[in-house]
């Protein structure tokens, strides 16, 4: 195998693989990327056995073939090559060695057999949907911050993608807060919900930042494939049932408070400085269009700030984890935010006109 490619193109491609390849692997070949050269271009693949990322790119292929090369080392060598370099990659099958050449530099790297590189099965993906990139970005980005972290609850460690027959929605929850986002366009296709694992969600989100075209998403009950132009991600899905989230969305939160997102976010950030790093408790005491935000520290320190709000209801006194509120306000960014509180123990709903198809729930702390 032998090909020539511009440094810029190769580096940009390799940067997509760095977070897919695990730094510490029990199976050595998983630290490598597979490079296949065919007439007209290259295909680079990385996998951690749960997810596979493949990218096609144009190169001047002199001789077709395939190799595997340590991902991190390859990336570092290409990163340090002069900017205008033309990178030549060729292998010596007899010695099991890959040569990376540019300018006066020559690197020889031992390689592992390309046939040992695992390939993920992507047959029988029955459901296929096409979504606009901008809308899919919202589906992912408005939910990903709510994904769980706990290894013992795998079903929460991802985004739940499902359909209600009218449109497609994503939901994520870590058990304390929940976010739900729906597509504005109707998609009549009905299918069973799937849970996309956390790592896949984060990779998709990263690639979506630089991608603006339509997205093709195919999936079965156990696997999914997403095509983003030259990039293809195949991933296993979380094999579990997502909790019945609809039942926790309260229907009768009748006390509402409307605030300016940016200034309220700054207030919470300021007041919560004093709170314990672990708990981040802030208290809202709302009455007569004034919300007093307060927080206390371990050493009996106290911080308060009053904010003018539009409030309809009798009186509310409620505690929250400041981080959860700030995460939502950071997604909303600006405009007016509506908090809907309940008199009972139900969670608080946060909504915003800017994000019409998105709803956030935050469970309060014990009073």
């Amino acid at each position, binding site marked *: 195998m032998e090909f020539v490619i511009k440094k810029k193109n190769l580096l940009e491609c390799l940067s997509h693989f760095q977070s897919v390849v695990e730094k510490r692997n029990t199976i050595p070949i998983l630290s490598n990327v597979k490079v296949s050269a065919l007439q007209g271009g290259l295909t680079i693949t990385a996998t951690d056995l749960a997810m596979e990322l493949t990218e096609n790119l144009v190169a001047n292929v002199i001789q077709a073939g395939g190799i595997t090369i340590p991902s991190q080392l390859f990336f570092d060598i290409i990163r340090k090559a002069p900017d205008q370099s033309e990178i030549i990659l060729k292998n010596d099958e007899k010695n099991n060695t890959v040569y990376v050449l540019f300018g006066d530099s020559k690197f020889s790297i031992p390689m592992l057999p390309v046939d040992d590189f695992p390939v993920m099965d992507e047959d029988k993906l029955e459901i296929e949907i096409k979504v606009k990139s901008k809308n899919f970005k919202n589906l992912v980005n408005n939910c990903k911050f709510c994904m769980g972290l*706990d290894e*013992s*609850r795998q079903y929460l460690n991802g985004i739940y993608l499902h359909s209600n027959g009218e449109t497609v929605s994503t939901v994520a*929850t870590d*058990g*304390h*807060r*929940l976010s739900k986002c729906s597509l504005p366009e109707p998609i009549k296709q009905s299918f069973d919900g799937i849970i996309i694992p956390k790592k896949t969600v984060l990779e998709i989100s990263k690639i979506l930042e630089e991608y603006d075209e339509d997205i093709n998403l195919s999936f079965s009950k156990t696997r999914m494939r997403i095509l983003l132009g030259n990039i293809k991600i195949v991933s296993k899905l979380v094999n579990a049932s997502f*909790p019945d989230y609809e039942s*926790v969305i309260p229907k009768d939160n009748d006390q509402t408070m409307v605030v300016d997102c940016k200034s309220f976010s700054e207030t919470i950030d300021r007041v919560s400085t004093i709170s*314990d790093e*672990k*708990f981040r*408790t802030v208290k809202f005491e709302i009455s007569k269009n004034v919300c007093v935000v307060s927080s206390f520290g371990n050493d009996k320190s106290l911080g308060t700030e009053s904010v003018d709000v539009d409030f309809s209801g009798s009186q509310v006194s409620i505690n929250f*984890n400041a981080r959860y509120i700030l995460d939502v306000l950071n997604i909303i960014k600006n405009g007016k935010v509506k908090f809907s509180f309940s008199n009972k*123990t*139900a*969670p608080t709903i946060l909504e915003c006109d800017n994000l019409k198809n998105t709803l956030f*729930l935050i*469970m*309060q*702390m*014990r009073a």
Partner: protein
Amino acid sequence: MIALLDCNNFYVSCERLFNPKLINRPVVVLSNNDGCIISRSNEAKRMGIKMGEPVFKVKHILRKGKVIVLSSNYSIYGDISNRIMNILKDSLSDVEIYSIDEAFFSLRGVNDRQKKCIYLADKILKWTGIPVSIGIAKTKTLAKIANRVVKKKKEYSRLKFNYKNVLEVKKDNDLEYILNNTNVQDVWGVGKKLSIFLNQNNIKNAQELKQCDENFIREKKGVVLQRTVLELRGVKCNYIETSLPIKKSICVSRSFGRKLYYYRDIRSALIVFVQKATSKMRKYNLFCRVITVFLKTSKYEKEVYSNSKTYTLIEPTIDIRLIWKIADDLLRNIFKDSFLYSKVGIILSDFYDKKNIQKSLIDYKSISETKEIKLMKTIDNINDRFGYGKIRLSSDNNQNFFSNSIVRNRKSPSWQMKTKYCSPCYTTRWCDIPKVKV
């Protein structure tokens, strides 16, 4: 000024309270499962019996010297300790209970500090029968050293002692003499490992540690040892902590009295430990989020096995029923047939206080937080009043275990620790109250 009160040979002193035959005789108290020596009377110390020595290694000395050997009886020691600490708290405002037999207290504003301490030591001896030593100095580290000097007067022969059990280091010359004659390993916060490092750097005694470059110490061993250096110089870095810091974890585990093979026996031990751990947690008014159960064989077994499993709750809890349900599941997950197990235990961690509990979104409708708290409080109140284990989980069949039961000589559970030489629980069990025949 800060003082450190330390009870002399505490466990042995407690045993002597109720058994005068032990006075003036060599006595040792053993650790859990009667494994090692953890308290020695002065007579036993003079025979060369070392602290922490395994019993089997000194069996010949014990036999030859007619040493009285006792299993540890923590219900007595805990009870006597509470009495001593209460005397201190009644007399002083800033008291930090440092361990079962040690307490720091502040002497700020007291004019004649030694006199005050002698008064306290006499009061404790009179009211509880326990002899204590008190060291007074500018910092906690120096108070610890002063206390050691009181107990080991022979090592500081040039020093003039005005009182038998109280010492205040007032003169700089005296302090220098004491620090020069105190091995660096005996300084509070310097253990065996650190002392090897310090010795390699030519720091052999407390005076040399005091005079060393504190930046070198910080760079090599961190801020904690740097604080020790500063405290030796008289700079107060550690204050009296009157409120308890939030615990990081609570672990209850015991090595079994004999090896256990059956799941039901291990489960029956675990349920007792779970109840003890949760009750301890509730005493600190804490709610836990993380529950870990571990199980292991002895490392000397032919087939060794050790495993642990952890579960994280969405909402922290104090509810014994929920914690036991999870612990039981975790044990079932890690238990494997055909091993002889020597230890099981539970660790509760990731604690929250009542004001900082994040509620669960998923099952918020089913959890009644007030009911849960009230029920646990009621159980604790009943057990405090009528004896530990009076109300317990229905899965718990260890009716003979709980130490406050009225009848004593019932058959112990198969997993209970070896306590072959245990004295009666004179102060905490009705049937063990000493009888006087007239």
